[in-house]
């Protein structure tokens, strides 16, 4: 017999977004959808233990949530709910066309990541409505007070309602920009997990990286032909594959050149490489890759090398050159310089990054990279100063420990 609690947990992962999305379409209200879905899952915990797990958990949850939503609307029985009452009269919605792009969950993701909402609100709303994380879970993940997260979500829902942010697929013209907005939200969630900030936080928040990957997989299933979706998923997988090797037993960050490559997750790497190959084939056919695809390709080069010395740095540099053309940001230029250091030596790289100083003076990886190049050039004193600055600016405990050790190893 399947353990009821386990079944609820699995259903929560697989069905939460679907239930919320279906209810949002039916009742036109995120608030009602969220509350009714939460109640349905709470009911499932009790009922499934007593009566056994239903044959179709998703249908059971949707039906239960629907009833809860109708109960709530009847209870409130407000005038402005007349429209919803009318909707309730039709118990069976006309079936929507089930093309990949018409999935309700996609509409849900697009509304949560709408550009008219503040970025923090998009993050919180996506994790709550699509990811099914609770407010306390989101608050813990972002080290923000629960009340603040609750308020962000409430305000976002109120704005969606008052400003009439529509619950439908963006128009064809808007779609690329809107998809890239969704990917940006997921990448932020992933990065917050990967390089968690805060002095008392674990250096890697697996809950956030896992959630970001799960949601990106969902988008990939919904938009299988989008190259950037595939690129972002590959990028996340190839980064996540190195997660355990990236932190030492004492919680210190382990840089790429010191990582135990045997500890990398071969399965995730294989999946990431498959996606990158798929995109390389598309690029060969003339589809220009976007930034996530190029970043994924860079990570594919790194994860293809059995040893740091086997890294194909000229390939890495060529990919960064391609990336710089798409995104002339100083952060990309900084990362490009790391490849330059391997090919042309630290002196050339140092000259390149010194030009970035005005724009990156407050960015700790700038100082960390500079410190490393100066160390390699034997300029210990300047290197130490750069490490000091990097330690001062770094927010991640594992990075701080790593940078401190490297500084203290200087002669």
């Amino acid at each position, binding site marked *: 017999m399947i353990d009821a609690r386990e079944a609820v947990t699995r259903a929560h992962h697989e069905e939460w977004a679907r239930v919320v999305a279906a209810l949002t379409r039916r009742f036109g209200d995120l608030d009602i959808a969220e509350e009714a879905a939460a109640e349905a899952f709470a009911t499932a915990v009790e009922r499934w233990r007593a009566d056994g797990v239903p044959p179709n958990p998703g249908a059971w949850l949707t039906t239960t949530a629907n009833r809860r939503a109708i109960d709530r609307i009847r209870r409130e029985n407000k005038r402005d709910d007349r429209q919803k009452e009318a909707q309730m009269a039709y118990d069976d919605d006309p079936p929507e066309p089930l093309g990949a792009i018409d999935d309700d969950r996609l509409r849900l993701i697009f509304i949560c990541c*709408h*550009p*008219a909402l503040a970025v923090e609100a998009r993050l919180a709303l996506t994790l709550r409505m699509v990811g099914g994380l609770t407010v306390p879970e989101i608050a813990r993940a972002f080290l923000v007070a629960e009340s603040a997260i609750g308020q962000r979500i409430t305000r976002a829902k109120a704005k969606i309602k*008052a400003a*009439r942010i*529509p619950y439908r697929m*963006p128009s064809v013209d808007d779609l690329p920009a809107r998809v890239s907005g969704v990917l940006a939200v997921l990448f932020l969630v992933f990065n917050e997990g990967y390089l968690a900030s805060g002095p008392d936080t674990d250096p890697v928040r697996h809950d956030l990286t896992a959630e970001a990957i799960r949601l990106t997989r969902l988008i990939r299933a919904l938009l299988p032909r989008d190259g950037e979706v595939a690129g972002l998923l590959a990028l996340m997988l190839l980064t996540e594959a190195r997660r355990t090797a990236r932190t030492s037993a004492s919680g210190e960050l382990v840089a790429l050149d010191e990582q135990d490559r045997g500890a990398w997750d071969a399965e995730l790497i294989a999946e990431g490489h498959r996606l990158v190959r798929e995109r390389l084939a598309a690029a060969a056919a003339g589809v220009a890759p976007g930034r996530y695809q190029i970043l994924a390709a860079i990570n594919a080069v790194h994860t293809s090398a059995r040893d740091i010395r086997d890294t194909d740095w000229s390939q890495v540099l060529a990919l960064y050159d391609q990336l710089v053309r798409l995104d002339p940001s100083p952060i990309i230029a900084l990362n490009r310089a790391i490849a330059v250091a391997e090919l042309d030596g630290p002196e050339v790289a140092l000259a390149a990054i010194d030009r970035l100083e005005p724009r990156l003076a407050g960015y700790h990886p700038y100082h960390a990279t500079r410190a490393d190049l100066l160390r390699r050039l034997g300029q210990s004193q300047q290197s130490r100063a750069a490490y000091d600055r990097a330690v001062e600016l770094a927010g991640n405990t594992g990075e701080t420990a790593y940078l401190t050790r490297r500084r203290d190893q200087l002669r």
Partner: protein
Amino acid sequence: MRYLVSVIDDKSDPGSTDRQPAISAFNERLIAEGYWVFAGGLADTDAATVIDNRGEQAVFSDGPFVESKEYLAGVWVWEVPDLDVALRLATEASKVCDRKIELRPFQ
């Protein structure tokens, strides 16, 4: 759904003054597509008067209710199905007017 569309100018960095023909053409389109409800450019904020009759006696004061670098230069009212349509039009309007646009739904 009706939106108030505010055109915001900046005293220290004003938008260009040759936009009228483009705005007229844009208005024609809004009318043709059925979105246009109202449009009007506003006189300078110096011409504003604030009236406060909450107390015993009405008080008139010269100037706008708030002095700021940025100010309301004109308004539209649009009737559109939802915010996505309004955002698309407002994106064009900002270019056409060479000024910032604020979108705010009516209740």
